[in-house]
């Protein structure tokens, strides 16, 4: 493939993406004959080139987990196409995926280690930097105790990265000060699954899309955040005109434009809407009585549970088992009329939603992501959508699927499955003696070394750094100095004199700005690894390129430091084979029909494998005896002691900060199609940067007119925590309702998290980035 061919395919992909943005639902024919016709950008035209070798890898970006083929020529990645063999994307890719390899070649790649000396970062040999990291970590443990050191990774960690991080922190050092940025994006999904089913991750898979009649998107702008998966919804509807897509959201987006019906609700009232749907299902006698009788139990928990705004906040729920009648009684406050008054959604729309779920002839898929999870009642709203599906028995069968989407490529595979969260081990929680014993046995450490109590979730971890309870923090593959809410406090905390901050990354970021040591990291296909996507699919890729300079994989950085600290025996693997050997050790944790992982050779051979992988077969629908070898009987929710799925009564509770006379607007934050998270990769890809070069604030035209603000004019946003000036966007790609503004967070020059609030869900610890109060003025 020539350079010009690549440029032409990139230009075509950009235009197709632009067309899709302007006209959701538009379909272009696939250019690659191996790819199916359908939505999404065409695969690039691919001339024959004897030097071009195509290698498989999952995409580096979102949690959909598209399979890509990367063209390597003369030691350089020069082309990308969707992998036609991947069941996820079937040969398609989005605009980020098509341009992904360009993120490897930014001219400011970190290729040498840097150490701060006399206030300035200076280059040093990698060996010297690793020596310093190990000695500082050991010194901090000696002087302040093992809980004074911490590690903060991400859902972009590969599975081996996360595994060695867990073994290092929990098995070697003996602290539970290990967190991942997935705490900021899907912790509420985890606690939702755990409280409703006792086991994490969806029961269904993407194949549900091919069977569903109705898609209800709850606060989920799939057209921009999961574009390839959204194209599968559109394709399903194109071939089956009776299929309906319902967009239930707080802001009108490209997804709303493509949907059959757009329903806008007031922030936080999704809690009430879900309860109203359940109330209506019961009122109309649409409950699947047999399913509920045999497979469901009813529960209630604490209410008025707080928001975590104060340091060292703790919460413990007290579940109480109740009967169906008690549940029905509690739902009495959620008639459609009452919820119309609260949510702004007309009663007829609420009845319509309930009728879709209640119709026994329709298969329904609910999809959600950050709208649910970044929510001060995130666990509750996850529970509530399961309640709906459980009441009507629409779960764990093809096309009937409550489906929690993830944002990052391995939030599931690494953070959730390996368990790089304070409370988790690779199998089970640190609080469970059985789980600690299993970990001690596999790791070859005394069980007493594995601490039985969780320490800090992410917000509390950064608070602990600010207070000085944590003195040493090693950050890998994430950029918290852009993403933390109420950012100023946490940035000031990391900059304090007696804190030691290590950052492993690919490019300079606001987080490397506050580092004492920067370790240059190998990026994606510059090392071997595995990711796990939203549908329990584990995907492997080989090392396809050498990393630049002294850049090193995160896995190997941790191993190097661990060995320097005297833990050689726990990390004995040769560099050439460490990934398969780590995989072999890690999968011992998941042995058994509930979570069996595919062998290494199988992963290398296939475009991903869904777990549980039992006797050579993927389990596409868990808890359903027809598909799941762990299930006994027709349905078996074996994650719970009573082998039932739990319906929880969870009430509506208001958020901690609402608009008032001084700060009269809601502020909502999020992402855009073209940029991945904080933009440290995608803003170095000129095509993507050109498409959306800077952050902006979306305003409703009526608000803009009232405030005398024209499109592009500078607007000052002020919250109780900070202020920011940025250009207005009026009726651009989306429109917030009156009284609400939206700002994307990808722009490190315009840090919207200076304004956001660090309130979180008391059960999951996940902050709410979708709701706080701001003042809006023309600047």
């Amino acid at each position, binding site marked *: 493939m020539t350079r010009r061919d690549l440029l032409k395919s990139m230009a075509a992909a950009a235009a197709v993406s632009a067309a899709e943005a302007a006209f959701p639902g538009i379909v272009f*024919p696939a250019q690659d004959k191996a790819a199916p016709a359908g939505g999404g950008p065409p695969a690039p035209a691919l001339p024959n080139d004897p030097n071009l070798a195509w290698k498989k890898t999952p995409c580096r970006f979102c949690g959909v987990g598209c399979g890509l083929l990367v063209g390597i020529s003369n030691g350089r990645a020069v082309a990308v196409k969707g992998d036609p063999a991947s069941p996820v994307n079937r040969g398609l890719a989005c605009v980020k995926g098509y341009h992904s390899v360009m993120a490897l070649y930014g001219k400011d790649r970190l290729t040498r280690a840097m150490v701060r000396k006399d206030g300035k970062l200076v280059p040093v040999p990698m060996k010297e930097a690793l020596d310093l990291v190990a000695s500082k970590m050991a010194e901090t443990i000696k002087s302040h105790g093992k809980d004074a050191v911490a590690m903060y990774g991400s859902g972009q960690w590969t599975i081996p990265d996360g595994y060695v991080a867990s073994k290092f922190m929990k098995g070697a050092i003996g602290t539970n000060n290990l967190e991942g940025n997935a705490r900021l994006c899907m912790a509420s999904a985890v606690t939702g699954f755990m409280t409703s089913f006792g086991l994490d991750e969806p029961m269904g898979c993407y194949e549900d899309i091919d069977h569903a009649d109705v898609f209800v998107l709850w606060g989920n702008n799939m057209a921009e955040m999961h574009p390839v998966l959204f194209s599968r919804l559109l394709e399903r509807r194109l071939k089956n005109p009776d299929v309906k897509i319902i967009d239930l959201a707080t802001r009108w987006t490209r997804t709303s434009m493509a949907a059959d019906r757009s329903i806008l609700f007031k922030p936080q009232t999704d809690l009430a809407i879900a309860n109203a749907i359940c109330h209506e299902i019961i009122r109309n006698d649409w409950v699947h009585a047999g399913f509920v009788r045999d497979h469901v139990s009813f529960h209630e928990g604490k209410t008025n549970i707080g928001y975590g705004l104060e340091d060292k906040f703790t919460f413990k729920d007290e579940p109480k088992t109740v009967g169906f009648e008690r549940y029905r009684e509690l739902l009495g406050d959620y008639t459609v009329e009452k919820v119309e008054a609260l949510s702004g959604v007309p009663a007829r729309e609420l009845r319509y939603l309930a009728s879709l779920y209640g119709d026994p002839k329709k298969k329904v898929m609910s999809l959600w992501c950050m709208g649910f999870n970044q929510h001060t009642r995130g666990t509750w709203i996850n529970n509530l959508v399961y309640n709906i599906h459980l009441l009507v028995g629409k779960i764990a069968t093809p096309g009937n699927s409550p489906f929690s989407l993830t944002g990052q490529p391995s939030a599931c595979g690494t953070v959730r499955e390996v368990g790089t969260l304070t409370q988790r081990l690779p199998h089970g929680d640190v609080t469970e003696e059985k789980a600690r014993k299993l970990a001690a046995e596999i790791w070859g450490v005394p069980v007493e070394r594995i601490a039985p109590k969780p320490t800090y979730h992410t917000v509390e971890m950064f608070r602990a750094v600010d207070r000085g309870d944590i003195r040493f923090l090693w950050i890998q593959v994430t950029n918290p100095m852009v993403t933390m809410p109420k950012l100023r406090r946490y940035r000031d905390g990391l900059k304090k004199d007696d804190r030691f901050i290590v950052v492993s990354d690919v490019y300079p970021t606001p987080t490397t700005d506050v580092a004492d040591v920067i370790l240059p990291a190998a990026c994606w296909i510059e090392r071997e690894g595995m990711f796990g996507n939203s549908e329990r699919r584990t995907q492997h890729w080989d090392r396809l390129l050498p990393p630049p300079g002294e850049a090193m994989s995160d896995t190997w950085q941790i191993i190097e430091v661990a060995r320097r600290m005297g833990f050689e025996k726990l990390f004995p693997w040769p560099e050439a084979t460490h990934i398969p050997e780590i995989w072999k050790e890690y999968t011992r944790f998941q042995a058994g029909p509930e979570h069996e992982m595919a062998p290494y050779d199988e992963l290398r051979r296939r475009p991903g494998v869904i777990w549980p992988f039992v006797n050579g077969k993927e389990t596409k629908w868990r808890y359903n005896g027809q598909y799941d070898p762990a299930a006994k009987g027709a349905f078996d929710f074996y994650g719970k002691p009573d082998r039932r799925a739990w319906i929880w009564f969870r009430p509506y509770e208001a958020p901690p900060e609402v608009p008032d006379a001084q700060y009269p607007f809601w502020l909502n934050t999020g992402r855009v199609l073209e940029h991945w998270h904080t933009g440290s990769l995608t803003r170095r890809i000129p095509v993507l940067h050109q498409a959306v070069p800077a952050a902006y604030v979306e305003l409703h035209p009526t608000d803009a007119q009232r405030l005398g603000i024209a499109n592009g004019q500078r607007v000052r946003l002020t919250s109780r925590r900070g202020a920011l000036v940025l250009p207005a966007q009026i009726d651009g790609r989306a429109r917030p309702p009156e009284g609400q503004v939206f700002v994307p967070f990808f722009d490190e020059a315009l840090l919207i998290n200076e304004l956001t609030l660090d309130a979180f869900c008391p059960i999951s610890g996940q902050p709410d980035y979708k709701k706080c109060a701001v003042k809006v003025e023309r600047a």
Partner: protein
Amino acid sequence: MLRRGAPMPIKSYLAYPVSGRLDELAAALRRLPGCEVIPAVNRDLLVLVTDSPDEAAEAALGLELAEVPALQALALVAGLGDAAIDPAPPISSARHSSGGRS
């Protein structure tokens, strides 16, 4: 700021036909030098990718495009040159000014 490639010989556009003349537009564009066409399946719109050897040829192509009777409007989406494949760090001039540690 984004560093733009110069020259920028490859461009992509959204091309809108005069009502009811999509097929005619696609055929006319395919006849022009260096033009590739991807029509949408379900909407009267097509993607046009142009590949010109130099700026003069690109200017000449522009004049020919303007004469296509079935073409109602062209919207430029991307213009790429050699710099596009060898990206500079576009964000370096707009780094947050919070500063590092001292």
